[in-house]
Each structure stands twice: as C-alpha cells, then as structure tokens.
C-alpha cells in the first residue's frame, strides 16, 4: 500500500480514495520522508480500512508517530458524521484517556540534581507502579461512581488538586454525559483498587529540565520562564477500568455490526451507528473512563507534590508546582469542525493523537531518555487534522523484540551516563522501553511543526525516570 502514497509536500502524503475498493474518502499521512520510509505497510493499510466506514469524513489522518495498532494505527484520527456516522470502541484504543499531565516547578535542574538520588526512589515509593500494584485509596462503589461521573470535580472537592489544575485540563477533566451505569461491574472491580496507580508498559513519571524555549510568548502564558527550569511529566491512563470498558464494548459492538448490517474490511473495526443505543452507551461509558483517568493523574499529582515538599522543605505552592496542562490521547469527542466550508458536528476518534486547538497546549512525550515537547495548537490543525496532533515518539520495535535485544541493566547504565537516574520495578521494564525501540521524537515533532498542525513551544529533557 505504501507505494501508492502521493507526496503533497515535504510533510504531507496522500492516499487517494481509489487506492482500494470501497474507500469513501482520502487518507492522509503527516510525516517527513524518514518517518514515511519507516512506517509499516500494514499501518498504512489500516488507514484505508477506516476510510471505508459509514459516515467517515475526509480525510482519515495518519500522524508522524503512527504505528500498527488494533484496527486503527496508534497515531491516527478518524472523524465521523454525527448524523449518519459510526462510533467505535476499536478506534479509541484499549487504554481510554491514556494521556499526559505536565507540571511546572520553579526549581532549577541543578537543585533537582543535588537531590535526584533521593527524589527518584521517593517518587517510586509514593506512586504505586508496575503490574500487580495496588493503590492506597479505598473507594466505596458509590464513591467510584462519583469519580466516573464527575472526574476532576471530585478530585478538587477531595483536595487532590486545585480548581486551577482542573482548568488546565482538557474538558476540565470532566466529560459531561459520563454514565457509570454503562460501565460494567467487572470494569469497576478492576479499576476500583487502581485509582492513583501508574501501571506499567510505556507509562512513566519523569522529572525533566527545559532545554530550549522555542516560543517566548507561549511559555510566558504557561509559567515557563527559562531553560534549566525543572518540570514533571506523568504519562498513564485509565488502568483496568478503561481496558475492561474497551473489551466490553468491543463485544457489544461486534453484535451491533451484525444487527445494523455494517460492512467491515477488518473485524477489529467494530462500531455502531452514532445514534444507536450501542453507540451512545459506549460513548457514555468511555466518558466515565476518561473521567477516571484524569482523576487517576490528579491523585498522583498530589502525591508527587508531597514528595517534593518533603525533599525540598517547601510547600508545593512555593515551588510553583502547577499543572501546565493535562491532555488525553485515546479518546472520542463530539466536536464541531468545518467540512467543505460548513460547520458540522463530528465524532472525532483520536487514537494515539492529541487535541490541537488554536493556542491550547499540545504535549508530545519522547521515549525514555530522549526529549519531550510542549507545543501549541493551531488553526492549521483545524483545517488539516480535525484539530489533532501527534502524541509521542511511537514504537518502532515491539516490546518483546526490545526485551530480546536490550538488557535492562545496560539501559539503566546508559541513561545514567546521560545524567538520567531511573528506577523501575524490574530491569525488563527498562529494556522494553529502551529509547532505541522508538521512533525519533525529533522527527515526529519536526513533522507536526512542519505541517503546521502544532508549533514548538519548549523542549524538555529527562533528569529522572520512574517506571512500572
């Protein structure tokens, strides 16, 4: 399929709708040549599959970090008409609202370095991580329902974060219409004990240093002052609760495909008409998982602040540890976009993709040991990518392949040589996330900047890493 890509310009590639049967619309990939050369053919094929679905709106978007995923690549966007389109659990991904919180500080990297040997283990102890880790919160079932329904309203009320943090969160950390009754008991049982846990896999907690400021006006607004300033990044999702919501609705939507007689090129793309019960039930359950995930990161924010308070002997307010922004990158949103010059409501499925609305923050996480970026959303993203940008570096090698190729002890040593202190539950989790198992984040960021779907604001590099 890759040979059918037509170059539009240095950063955009077209897959015209004729490249396979039944495609209703074009697909487009935003990436530079280096990333296009590396992308898997199967992932490109997946974009064309999505272009056949009912009510799909042109174009299906592949982002520079795209790699093969379940149904739709990770790093892609599919938008569907709110009248006659579909809504799909498969196009949202298993880890609903996997996302990133970026917290600033007024500490310098040098101040961090003097305490890093104490800081990293303390964070590792304070934030439960790894497979099989359990949170310390004991939520009753009605209280978990409150979290699912009210998200960060609950977290603010309970004193985990402030209203200011909440305002710096996509959707204010509370998607309206979230319905806990649409979340299965099994999902609640899985997620109940896990609120306030990091999990494992590619999820991490990093202490970073601003290495470059690339947009002076934007950083001023977001409280970032100069290179050398320390930042904190949390990357994780909705844990077992979100995984089970996805699993449950994939089954429900599989039946819906038969019920509504929807033709699918790939069974993984199960979906339901937007106005069907199955579609709206998924949307309401997904919103509940989104709220859970924002709350999960809010709870961890409090614990991280407490660790910093203990180690630096100052209050978190004195250290200006405020949320710069919290974003989701596996989510379905009902949004208004211009289609052929006309405003239309669309269900935008962002899978491994970040919202990029004009002048709002976009966060792209690098792989462990490499740089991460804060960017700014643009009007161009509204025109080209349904207000979306990339989410991370994107894997280039499977976790199993990485474990076979790298040894965790050596990965830790290599990080240390770069001045990065790391702690993980076991060495393999460092091996599977070795920087070499990922695409080059600089190429990803150059591509979104080059295509104009978000513009660089600041670059950060890690000082300390905590992993599950």
């Amino acid at each position, binding site marked *: 399929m890759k040979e059918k890509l037509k170059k539009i310009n240095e950063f955009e590639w077209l897959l015209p709708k004729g490249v396979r049967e039944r495609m209703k619309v074009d697909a487009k990939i935003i990436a530079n040549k280096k990333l296009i050369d590396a992308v898997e053919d199967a992932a490109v094929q997946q974009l064309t599959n999505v272009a056949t679905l009912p009510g799909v709106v042109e174009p299906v978007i592949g982002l520079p970090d795209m790699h093969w995923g379940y149904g739709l690549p990770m790093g892609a966007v599919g938008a569907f008409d709110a009248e006659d389109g579909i809504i799909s659990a498969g196009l949202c991904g298993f880890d609903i609202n996997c996302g990133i919180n970026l917290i600033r500080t007024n500490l310098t990297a040098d101040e961090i370095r003097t305490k890093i040997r104490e800081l990293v283990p303390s964070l590792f102890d304070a934030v439960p991580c790894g497979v099989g880790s359990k949170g310390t919160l004991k939520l009753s079932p009605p209280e978990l329902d409150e979290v699912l329904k009210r998200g960060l309203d609950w977290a603010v009320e309970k004193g985990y974060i402030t209203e200011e943090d909440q305002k710096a969160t996509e959707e204010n950390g509370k998607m309206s219409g979230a319905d806990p009754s649409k979340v299965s008991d099994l999902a609640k049982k899985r997620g109940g004990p896990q609120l306030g846990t990091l999990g494992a896999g590619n999820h991490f907690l990093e202490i970073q240093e601003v290495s470059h400021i690339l947009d002076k006006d934007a950083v001023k607004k977001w409280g970032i002052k100069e290179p050398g300033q320390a930042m904190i990044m949390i990357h994780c999702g909705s844990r077992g609760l979100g995984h089970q919501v996805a699993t449950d609705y994939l089954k429900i939507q599989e039946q819906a495909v038969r019920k509504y007689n929807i033709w699918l090129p790939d069974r993984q793309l199960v979906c339901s008409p937007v106005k069907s019960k199955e579609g709206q039930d998924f949307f309401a359950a997904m919103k509940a998982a989104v709220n859970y995930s924002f709350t999960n990161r809010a709870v961890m924010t409090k614990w991280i602040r407490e660790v910093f308070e203990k180690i630096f002997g100052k209050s978190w307010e004195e250290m200006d540890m405020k949320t710069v922004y919290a974003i989701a990158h596996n989510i379905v949103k009902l949004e208004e976009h211009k289609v052929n010059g006309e405003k239309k409501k669309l269900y935008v499925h962002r899978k491994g993709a970040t919202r990029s609305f004009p002048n709002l923050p976009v966060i792209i996480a690098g792989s462990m040991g490499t740089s991460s970026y804060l960017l700014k959303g643009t009007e161009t993203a509204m025109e080209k990518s349904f207000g979306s940008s990339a989410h991370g570096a994107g894997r280039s090698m499977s976790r*199993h392949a990485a474990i076979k190729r790298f040894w965790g002890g050596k990965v830790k040593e290599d990080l240390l040589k770069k001045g990065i202190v790391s702690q993980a539950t076991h060495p393999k989790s460092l091996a599977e996330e070795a920087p070499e198992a990922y695409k080059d984040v600089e190429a990803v960021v150059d591509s979104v900047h080059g295509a104009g779907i978000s513009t660089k604001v600041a670059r950060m590099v890690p000082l300390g890493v905590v992993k599950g």
Partner: protein
Amino acid sequence: MKKYKFIEDLTSDVMFEAYGKDLKEVFENAAEALFTVICQTKKVKHNITKDIVIEAEDVRELMINWLQELIARVDIEHLFFSKTEIQEISETKLNAKVYGDKAKPELGETVVKAVTYYEFKFEKTDKGYVARVSLDI
C-alpha cells in the same frame, strides 16, 4: 509437543500460539503463555487456588473469555497466576482451578490490557488443537 510459542513481533502487541493434544491441554497452555507475559511465573508460588467457571457460545469464544477472565482476575483479586488445571471442558463450558500468589510488582512483567481478535485462530489439526492469540499490552 511444544506447549506454546511466541510467533510474531507486533509493535504494540504480543502474539502467541498455544498447542494441545486435546481441549484441556490447549486451554491450559494458552493460560500459561498469558501468565508468562504478565509475571515471572517461575517465581510465583501456588499458595492461592481459585475456581473459575467460563461459559460461551462456541469454543472460540470460550478461549477468548477464558483468557479475558484471567486478565481481569489479576486486577480484581490482585493475584499472579502460574498454573492452571482444567477440571472439565466442553466446547461451551469449562471448570478450572488456577494457582498463584499475591501479586508483587517486582515479580511482574507487564500489564496485559486485553485479548484482541487480531488474527485470532482456533483450529483442530491432526495433532490436536492450535490457538493463536494476540494480546494488547
């Protein structure tokens, strides 16, 4: 006969094939392959036993439901498993005992989010059964 093998490297998933001369064996071996992705099974003792009953409309769904149940149990009961014994099995129902211990993150491998239908296969061959399963991790 080999119990299972990891057959393909997908960038975001793990895929394995489990084998068995009969249904009992292929279900036990698929569970064992799953456990090795989640935890260091050799270090997980058999201190805790759980009884599991799974039902489904057909044998393919039975395999998916079986593995999904085991994934969910790790979160719900906070356990790692290292051994299973299928007590009774038909194409639509199984009774099993699973053995394991309290989950300790230092004995963990990775979080398995779900079983997926990607290239899922359940076949009867001359030698018995083969199940091909992909896991989203």
